[in-house]
């Protein structure tokens, strides 16, 4: 690294050392021709000394502990990802009939059987209790929040009269949905439900004590789901960080950006429709393939896994 020494009249005999030459017209060659001063000797000895260790950037000073991993209940998935991380946001995305809900119910079953209290925020009110019971979910430990399109939440009645019934939107927390998002493909239909999802998520994350909180946005169109501002996902991630709560989001495509620690894509593997025996296998041994799209879970002691996809079978509840 070249250096030039400048003597300032304000600070006599105190050299200022810059990384670049002061003047493009003052190359080192001309400086070398000058007689070696005391400052030059010091610099020469400093440059000859072993290079000091690089200064660690402030963003890396904080050594974060590895998150605790919990089993998802599916061994193939656990071997692929190491399980689900507590204190992190995990996204599971896939198209219709790809197996997302089957994975969700299995994960909830595993969590409730561990004795943890879980919450499911159902944006489209699609939860099927019988399927959950078949998957092994302990219903007494699962809080089900059913969002609805037409429900108008109560108004904050600090100044309202007790004689009237409740009014419009709830003013306890900002929804985060921008006004411009009213336009767009089908968004107006989902706006109310997404607002409810965000508000309820905020409340549950602040209350603490849940082992798992799952947001089921599987039926929300991609264009509508992407209207959720990134700030909301950052807020959720910060709220769940350093807590034992695992935040799980089910959707059609990844929408949380860099806020998610793990993004899984699931798809269904089925026999060819022309196979005559496939009709009997329509739902029996429904095979699900899972692929890791992105993982930000840093494990210092482990090597990066070579495997990025896995598959496993799901069973029909009546086929046993």
């Amino acid at each position, binding site marked *: 690294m070249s250096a030039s020494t400048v003597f300032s009249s304000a600070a006599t005999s105190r050299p200022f050392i810059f990384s670049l030459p002061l003047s493009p017209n003052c190359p080192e060659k001309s400086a070398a021709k000058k007689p070696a001063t005391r400052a030059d000797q010091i610099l020469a000895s400093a440059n000859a000394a072993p290079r000091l260790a690089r200064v660690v950037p402030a963003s890396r000073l904080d050594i974060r502990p590895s998150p605790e991993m919990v089993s998802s*209940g*599916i061994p*193939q998935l656990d071997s692929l990802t190491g399980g689900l991380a507590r204190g992190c946001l995990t996204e599971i995305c896939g*198209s219709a*009939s790809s*197996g997302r*809900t*089957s994975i969700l119910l*299995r994960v909830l079953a595993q969590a409730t*059987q561990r*004795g943890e*209290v879980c919450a499911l925020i159902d944006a489209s*009110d*699609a939860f*099927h209790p*019988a*399927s*959950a019971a*078949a998957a092994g979910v*302990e*219903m*007494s*430990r*699962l809080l*089900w*929040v*059913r*969002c*609805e399109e037409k429900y108008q939440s109560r*108004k904050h*009645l600090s100044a309202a*009269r*007790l004689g009237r*019934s*409740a009014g419009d939107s*709830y003013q*306890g927390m900002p929804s985060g949905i921008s006004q411009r998002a009213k336009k767009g493909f089908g968004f107006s239909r989902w706006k109310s439900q997404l607002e*409810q999802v965000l508000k*309820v998520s905020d*409340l*549950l994350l602040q*209350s603490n*004590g849940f*082992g798992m909180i799952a947001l089921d946005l*599987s039926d929300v169109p991609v264009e509508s789901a992407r209207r959720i501002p990134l700030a909301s996902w950052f807020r959720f991630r910060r709220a769940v960080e350093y807590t*034992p*709560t695992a935040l799980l989001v089910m959707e059609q495509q990844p929408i949380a950006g860099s806020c998610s620690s793990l993004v899984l894509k699931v*798809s*269904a593997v*089925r026999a060819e*429709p022309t196979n005559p025996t496939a*009709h009997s296998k*329509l*739902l029996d041994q*429904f095979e699900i393939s899972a692929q890791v799209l992105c993982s930000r879970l840093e494990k210092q002691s482990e090597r990066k896994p070579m495997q990025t996809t896995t598959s496993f*079978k*799901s*069973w029909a*509840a*009546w086929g046993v």
Partner: protein
Amino acid sequence: MFACIFIPDFPAQAIIRFESALRACPVAVLSGRPPLQKVMSINERARQMGVDTGATKSQLEAWENLVLRARSESQEASAHAALLDCAQSFSPEIEDTAHGTALLNLDGLAPLLGPLPKIARDIAQRVLQMGLEANIAVASNPDAALLAARGFSGVTLISDGHEAERLGDLPVDVLLESFSSDAVQAARWVETFDRWGIRKLRALAALPEVPLIERLGQQGLRLQKLARGTASRSLRLLGPPQIFTESVELEYPIVLLEPLAFLLNRMLEQVCTRLHARALALQEPRLDLELAATQPDDCESCSATRDSEFNRLPRTFTRTLRLPIPMLDAKIFLKLLQLDLQAHPPGAPIVKITLTAEPARPRSLQSGLFQPVFPEPEKLELTLARIAGIVGEDRVGSVELLDTHREDAFAMRHFAPLESASASVNKVMQPEKQKKNVSMPTSMSERETTCQVDVHNKFERHAREQMSAVIALRLFRPPLIANVALREAKPVRMRCLQREDIAGEIVWTAGPWRSSGDWAEQEGWSREEWDIAVPAESSLVLYRLVQDKFSGHWFLEGMYD
């Protein structure tokens, strides 16, 4: 030893207890029908100003700063109940002597609560926390303690054997007010003692017994024993109350939530303090709001019709909070009541508020190192109430599957995971016990919705053995109406009317599975289910198609995912 708690000017103090801002003001309590109202109780500041009991309302106009209040028996009852709760917190043996007066048995409490002077000071402090200023007296017998509490202000301690000496300076009026139930007889005795020149208890105690009995009878002897402080008796013990009630009547109807919340906060604090004094908790607070009478708008209509309609208007509005566990946090109760009233407003101005609390044993939970993470019950209740305000009361909670074959039969229950927390601890620490075997559907043509326990047992074991997922169904609520084309009684093409993206050729079909039920009920059902696959973009989507056999209509019930 016995202690007596006496509240001087009890009606005035009962009102000041609820309106603490009046503590620094002169207050006079009026009773009687207007315009013949008279002062029946005053506080010390009003007494210093020269106000006296018995003054009429017109006479009180001379004092500008005097605060007038109507007598409130409900507040007096609440204050007296609070006094008894305070006494109960010190001794299990208490006597409800009179309004604003309670006697306690302090025997055996010294090792627990400290020396008697400390106990007396603690009692005074606890009563002050309840919003009342009391005179406390401790003596060797209940009647001496009662006399001392009525006669001396502050905390008085009379050691054993010195009762006559300490009580001697009290006027005879105090004795007769304390122990004479007949006011006319008491007035006669006062006059008699005054004629005799006996104005202090010391003089009464010094009278010879036989001449006193000859003139006043046994009652006179009894009065002399009381004056000497030698009367002894047992306490008439009081049992614990079953219900704790706080009530307030409003001078002006309340129409806004904010002032109502202010009053509720005061009442809840009082109730929680009283419950805490008895080591109890609250699980079902009930709020009764007496509403102002409202009349129909058209007052010119038939009077008979108007009166009948007026009588049918609801006068009391009741809301009850049913909590999963007993709690004792006034702030949480207040917030829950506020959220509940926002969702269910009373619909009319409020003129009286009554808060009733049935006591419950406080919950006791053994903490452990290996227990899974669990939300705080108090915080969880608040969160659930807030969520109910966002999505609706019946749309948040836990699910209970109903024991019926009808599809999607379930009930929403209040989310209360605490009851199963202890079960989960046992499950973690002990090996799993074998659950009972349940019979399964015998044929694939018969698909039933069974009780949660049955399904859970069988398939949990299977899923665990296979360690994989069970295929899930996502329902469309309500089911989507579909137009279905049939070929040889099998669906071959489908189009959903409400979702344009769900349409196409049906490439796979499985079924039908027929089921029906509730034939004897009015809500009988009969359906035929098909599992179908429809191409969508680059994959196949699996649906459950259902035909209602009664109407013949086709519905898309759900999607397998």
